């Protein structure tokens, strides 16, 4: 049998085979390296423009300047990273457990407000237990972020207890309605939260262990700070989802009754997934206020829940990194529309209308999301190749047989 020869014909050599191979095996590594060096790419661009201008290459400098308008800035990348994490936290529910929560802005917002209030509290100091302030003043940011996770975990557990009496579309409705209590509370207790103006003036955030100052003063440092946390959290989510617990989540999504009959307490599993998702959303919410040094009240409004649903479905709810892709597309498009496109066509200033319209089209025509669709292509392409190979092998086998006879 001459299988060795026939194998050659099917080594990947056309473009798509190559693309899918790279995409599957090295996609994550390429993405990671790209993100790791991103701030240097962006600042390198600015430096080249300055250098070109200094050396009187006006035309090239101008061209590069125009190009720079289409490159996402480092602060935008911070936003993209944070919403990737938020989306992956949200996807623990939607993609893995099959629960559509439309109230995740609550935990995102609570995380942000917790960090903001803790920061203000450390700055002021409390006269009652000065030793607490003294101790934690050494690690203000670390302690605040951990508090943000804990507080949003508590709130998502509470809301989860109430909302999980409902399933399917009712669950979506109830989570949305319940999430708005946080918004109204933020409005009502405006002494504490700043009301509709949001909580501002959170300058001088400092990380004790590395003695780093993060915030609007230094985008690059903030970027790396966020990047490290997002990568760590992503790794944790990845581990959880591939653990036996993750399997059970997907069993609940596929058929809750069957999972229950297998002896799993599905109500508890749903609540756990909800709390986990909520606390990670709280982490994302806490990170989201660091660069801006303020908590806008929109963070806790259901507009933000809408954003994360859109981001997740853009990328693909069934895929682990789907929300990351969705986050990039969403923020990048939004940025382009409001800064570049709007120069040529005024109706691009109404970006919500565009995003909402595109979202409806995605739900109707690309329900798998972008990454999910690419994954399907990969699968289809490989299946096709595999079948071709089987056919070819049986052909050549019969050919050899007829030769022998």
């Amino acid at each position, binding site marked *: 049998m001459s299988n060795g020869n026939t194998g050659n014909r099917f080594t990947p050599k056309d473009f798509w085979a190559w693309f899918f191979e790279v995409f599957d095996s090295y996609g994550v590594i390429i993405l990671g390296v790209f993100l790791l060096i991103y701030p240097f790419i962006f600042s390198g661009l600015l430096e080249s423009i300055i250098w070109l201008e200094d050396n009187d290459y006006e035309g090239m400098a101008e061209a590069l300047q125009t190009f720079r308008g289409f490159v996402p800035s480092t602060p935008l990348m911070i936003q993209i990273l944070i919403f990737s994490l938020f989306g992956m936290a949200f996807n623990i529910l939607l993609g893995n457990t099959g629960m559509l929560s439309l109230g995740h802005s609550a935990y995102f917002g609570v995380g942000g407000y917790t960090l903001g209030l803790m920061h203000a509290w450390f700055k002021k100091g409390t006269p009652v237990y000065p030793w607490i302030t003294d101790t934690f003043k050494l690690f203000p940011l670390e302690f605040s972020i951990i508090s943000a996770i804990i507080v949003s975990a508590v709130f998502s557990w509470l809301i989860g207890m109430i909302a999980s*009496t409902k399933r399917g579309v009712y669950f979506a409705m*109830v989570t949305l309605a319940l999430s708005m209590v946080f918004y109204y509370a933020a409005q009502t207790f405006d002494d504490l939260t700043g009301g509709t103006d949001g909580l501002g003036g959170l300058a001088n955030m400092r990380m004790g262990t590395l003695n780093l100052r993060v915030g609007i003063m230094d985008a690059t440092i903030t970027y790396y700070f966020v990047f490290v946390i997002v990568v760590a959290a992503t790794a944790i989510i990845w581990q959880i989802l591939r653990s036996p617990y993750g399997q059970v989540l997907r069993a609940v999504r596929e058929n809750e009754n069957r999972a229950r009959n297998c002896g799993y307490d599905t109500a508890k599993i749903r609540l756990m997934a909800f709390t986990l998702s909520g606390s990670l959303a709280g982490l994302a919410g806490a990170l989201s206020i660091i660069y801006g040094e303020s908590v806008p009240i929109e963070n806790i409004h259901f507009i933000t829940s809408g954003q994360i649903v859109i981001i997740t479905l853009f990328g693909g709810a069934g895929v682990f990194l789907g929300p990351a892709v969705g986050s990039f597309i969403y923020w990048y498009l939004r940025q382009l529309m409001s800064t570049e496109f709007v120069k040529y066509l005024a109706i691009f200033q109404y970006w919500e209308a565009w*995003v909402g319209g595109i979202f409806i089209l995605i739900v109707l025509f690309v329900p798998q999301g972008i990454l999910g669709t690419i994954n399907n292509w990969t699968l289809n392409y490989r299946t096709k190749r595999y079948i071709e190979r089987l056919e070819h092998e049986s052909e050549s086998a019969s050919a050899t047989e007829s030769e022998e006879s």
Partner: protein
Amino acid sequence: MPTGGVDLAEFLQHLFLGLVQGSFYVLLALGLSIIFGLMGIINFGHGVFYMLGAYMGFTVANLIIAPIFGPNIAFVAALAAVPAIMFGIGMVFEKYVISRIYNTDNARFSGVLITFGLSIFLPDFVRMIWGRPGRPFNIPPMFNFSILEIGTFNVSAYRTFVVLVAAILVVLIWFLLFRTNLGMVIRAGTSNNIMVQVLGINVTKVWRQTFGLGIALAGFAGVMISPLFAVDPTMGDDILIQTFIVVVVGGMGSFIGPVIGGLIIGQLWALTPLIGRTVFIVENFSGTMIGPDFWEKASDILLFVVMSLILILRPRGLFGQEGAFD
């Protein structure tokens, strides 16, 4: 220290305002509930359709008719025209967008997502056409009088009109659902869609009309509320949430649930600020976090507390029955 206490006139005034607010809740919750009962879709776009109805009313009344025939006729014309326009818009949206998902894997989720997408799309779309700031919409002059005035208790003619019209509409919807053939088909479809088809009735047509009906009700409520507040692209946000609370409290899929639920939530919404003026609160809690100032603004929060209690104690709501108009 201020003294507490609520006099009768003040109490009656809030009771009346609660009835007005409740009327809007009833109209919106009925539409939401009928659509859900028949099609299994929770219309997250209900709030923005209400907002769109208000803008349609504004356009018909203030921009087209008022310059020629004056504000009174213009308002009546808007009341008549907007439900028809919104009925058409609802049917078109059902036909070209929602009907595409009926045979997909997860139709109910897709229904939520599409209507949710619409609730993001429409406010900005409205800004694109009518401009960013809200538009004022005055109470038509023919309603500029009070039916009753005792001290601070003032029953304005327009608010009375709102309550009356809402009551008439509730009776009409009841008549439609329980005394007409279309209503019989809608109720039958709520119980079992497939068998309605087996009997030779084209369900898709009924679905389309029902969706249009729900949207028409929302749009009508939008026109009715415009003279009380301004017309604004975000006016649908809060009321959508409140409508959800109404159907959770009243119960989905029944006729009486949204009506009673709407009236209860309306009263809660209006009476909460009075709690802060009672002797008890003023004397014991002034200056604290739950002092009189808190209760002035606590309506929205209290509604959520009530909803949470209902969800824990009666997950189906007060009158909820699994898919039936009882």
